[in-house]
């Protein structure tokens, strides 16, 4: 079942690759959208069958037995929400790209492959399989940015992205090797390693392993100060690429923490929990402050990603601060962190797609170039305002639930850090309110560059169909959080038990 979900896009891509490119964009994007909808139904079936504890829909086959590597897939409450997020975001991106005019065939094939590796990463239960998808996501995203970005700067940004994240992935690989060799019989199997807990004693070896894995995941997340690849990559990538990069690829980093770093290196995680908290808080504050100073809409959204991922790390770090009566608080923090991954995925993808829609019309990302958009393109303005409010953590949206849980869970263990991190929410609120008021209110103003089409139309049906559901989901998860919390909470409890042992 999971294999089918993961490889369905790749199969569709293989089938589409024999079709001639001149068939036009709708054939390819249509097939892409259909793939997403089928995947969505399949994920729904998996969701319905998810067992209360342990992994669901497990598949395991020998791959490289002599090295302890197997093809091992499975989902639990930590990975299933992210798998669902992957499918939802790719389907939304497919709808958004309905009118893709620049080499639609190659574009769709590349995204379908990206869809396969993204889904595959979240259901991998083997470190090498995880690494395989992790690395391939970088390769495919590189081609998206370099191929559909904006000329020479895009190639440079793509190269920076590739080099940075590739360095991270190799650090990750070194960490995985250290982990596998720590077991009596080398194995890369995640549940086996979690059960055996070979590095339960901590020590230098375990600390170095955590450092390698932490750096690898930290680059991808990204956390301060490993985030410098992110703004140029986002600025130069096409809107669909940015949405996937921020919505899915960043989650690969944070998901790696909950799937690998915490359960497989519990002793070291507890030992260095404060370091992760501090890195998280630094990312929160730095991301928010730098975002505040941006004049470029996309760069601003990119930096808020650094800010939002910081909360995740704060929550996960706090979950490592084990004390006698902290069980409930730690569960809140972990659950909030996972919730934040889903929430941020939905909201940021919506923001990037909106920014892309604006760029299609005005050919500029400069915030100062726009004004009074609410009067001329109300649908855009409404969605943008909703997305901005959702992103700044207004109650009623999913971001609020996530951040509230993280703060509530972390306050007891790390009060000072939590208080500092809360100011990050204020900064984000300020920057989104500023951007919203500058762009949406006042006198109508759009960039007056040559090549700007005269009409400045409102959002079209495909764009509405892509962005609307994302924000609806973000609202739904804000109003009815139990839908997802019921799935996350048991898994978060299991994770905390693994960390605390």
């Amino acid at each position, binding site marked *: 079942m999971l294999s089918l979900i993961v490889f369905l896009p790749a199969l569709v891509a293989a089938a589409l690759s024999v079709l001639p490119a001149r068939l036009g964009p709708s054939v390819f994007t249509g097939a892409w959208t259909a793939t997403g909808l089928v995947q969505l139904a399949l994920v729904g079936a998996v969701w319905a069958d998810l067992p209360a504890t342990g992994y669901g829909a497990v598949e395991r086959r020998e791959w490289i037995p002599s*090295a302890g590597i197997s093809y091992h897939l499975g989902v639990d409450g930590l990975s299933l929400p992210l798998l669902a997020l992957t499918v939802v975001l790719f389907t939304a991106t497919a709808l958004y790209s309905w009118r893709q005019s620049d080499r639609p065939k190659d574009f769709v094939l590349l995204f379908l492959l990206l869809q396969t590796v993204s889904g595959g990463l979240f259901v991998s239960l083997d470190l090498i399989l995880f690494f*395989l998808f992790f*690395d391939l996501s970088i390769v495919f995203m590189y081609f998206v940015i370099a191929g559909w970005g904006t000329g020479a700067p895009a190639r440079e940004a793509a190269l920076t992205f590739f080099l940075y994240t590739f360095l991270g992935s*190799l650090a990750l*690989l*070194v960490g995985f*090797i250290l982990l596998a060799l720590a077991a009596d019989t080398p194995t890369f199997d995640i549940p086996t390693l979690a059960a055996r807990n070979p590095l339960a004693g901590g020590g230098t070896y375990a600390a170095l392993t955590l450092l390698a894995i932490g750096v690898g995941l930290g680059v991808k997340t990204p956390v301060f100060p490993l985030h410098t690849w992110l703004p140029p990559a986002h600025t130069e990538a096409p809107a669909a690429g940015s949405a996937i990069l921020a919505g899915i690829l960043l989650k690969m980093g944070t998901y790696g923490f909950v799937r690998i770093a915490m359960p497989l290196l519990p002793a070291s995680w507890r030992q260095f929990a404060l370091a992760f908290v501090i890195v998280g808080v630094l990312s929160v504050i730095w991301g928010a402050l730098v975002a505040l100073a941006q004049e470029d809409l996309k760069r601003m959204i990119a930096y808020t990603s650094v800010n939002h991922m910081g909360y995740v790390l704060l929550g996960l770090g706090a979950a490592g601060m084990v004390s006698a009566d902290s069980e409930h608080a730690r569960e809140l923090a972990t659950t909030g962190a996972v919730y934040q991954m889903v929430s941020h995925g939905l909201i940021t993808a919506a923001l990037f797609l909106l920014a892309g829609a604006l760029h299609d019309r005005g050919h500029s990302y400069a915030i100062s170039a726009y004004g009074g958009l609410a009067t001329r393109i109300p649908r855009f303005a409404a969605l943008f305002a909703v997305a901005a409010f959702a992103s700044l953590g207004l109650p009623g949206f999913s971001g609020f639930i996530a951040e509230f849980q993280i703060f509530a869970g972390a306050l007891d263990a790390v009060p000072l850090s939590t208080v500092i991190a809360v100011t990050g929410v204020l900064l984000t609120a300020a920057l989104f309110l500023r951007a919203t008021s500058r762009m949406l209110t006042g006198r109508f103003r759009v960039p007056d560059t040559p090549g700007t089409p005269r009409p400045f139309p409102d959002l079209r049906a495909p764009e509405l169909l892509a962005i609307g559901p994302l924000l609806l989901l973000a609202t739904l998860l804000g109003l009815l959080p139990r839908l997802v919390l019921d799935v996350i909470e048991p898994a978060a409890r299991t994770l905390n038990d693994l960390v605390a042992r």
Partner: protein
Amino acid sequence: MDTSMHSDPIALAPEIALLISAVLGLLVGAWTPRRRQWIVHALAALACVAGLAATVVSATRPDETVFGTYVLDTATHATRAIVLLAVLALIALCRDTVAGHKRETEFVVLLQLGALGAIALAGAGDLIMLFAAFLLASVPLYALAGWAKQGSATEAALKYYLAGALLGVTTAAGVTVLFGVAGATGYGRVAEGISRGPAAAAAVGLIAVLAGLAFKAGAVPAHFWVPDVSDGTPPPVAAALTTVPKIGALVALHRLLGTAIPPDVVDWRLLVAVLATASMTLGNLAAFAQSSVLRLLGYSTVSQVGYLLMAVAVAGQAPLARPALLLYLAAYALTNIAAFAVVASTDQRTLDAYRGLFRRDPLLALALAVALLGLVGTPPTGVFVGKLEVFTAAVDGGLAWLVVVAAVNTVASLFYYLRWIAPCFHPAGSADSDRPADEGAPRTANRWARGVALTSAALSLLLGLASGVVLTAVGAAG
């Protein structure tokens, strides 16, 4: 002496098949008109297939030493298989270049003799045998380097020959010193003898032999011939010279260090680790600035040897070292041949010429991307699994710092491989190279090379996916 010496020539069937077909090929070629020289190719291919079959049969037998000097174990069998497969690919690859050429037969015969030398290097379990194999793997390839008789090829051949002659003498001297110290030439007795003899003399002898094997492998500090040979000769020749002898030399090095030189007498582990570091780093640094793809590939092979040497550095220390080395060698051979085959197929030597390749020939561009990303070590290609195993073996053998160096180098190498891959997929730059003259021309002219490129790129992917089976095969006796 070894009284139970086994001297069954049948055990050497793959080697004999290569030798007979080389000699027969030379005779047949001399009496065949130029347009029917393909018979020699067919004969050589047949010999390779027969050799592969014989290898499979002999691999089922227990390990043994024949003629007292030649070891038949998993490493030798694997080397036979890899080299014979590589020769098969190279024979197909060279068709476009050599068909109808006046020295067509010579190419095939020299290639086969060089391959025979490479296999013999891998099997050598005796110092004298090692040196004989070294010569057999060198002399035919000097001639092959000069095969094209262009100005640059002659220069490359001369450089290759001079380096080889110098380091051949060092190797002979080293063999003599080791013999003097140990009082024996068989690896087992050498190990005993060295433990009793003066360690300093043994170290000098070992370094001298290492220099010769480093030359064959194209490793630092004996790598100076690599870029000239890969850039100065036709791509099929370059592919042969940077693939075939490397396989033999690295397995020979692994065997020599793992069985004949006890690391507690001469600490060669650090020495090899330093050579590995130097190879990968210098190879990468030099590759950065290249504008000729062949020169870039040449330096890339130098850096690849660095990664391969990591497995040699932990020979005998980590049980995974040998299977890792063999798997990496197989993957490297396939991937390297694929990359050179793309160059042979397009006949373009500058990076700029690859701009927009994806538009002109999507499959070839994809094969190039698979090959180059494979050389970086991107999963799920064969080199990735090879690298993973080598890294694991190195950490297991206590050389974690070397793994960090290799990881950093891998990232650095990505930079120059991307300089080649990225333009292939650029739509913008293809406008000027999109002339009708270019369109389709490489496809029809060099279809053999194109076929080899696509096949070996696909095989390198397959090797990664099926690496479980391969590792079980090469790790069975490990």
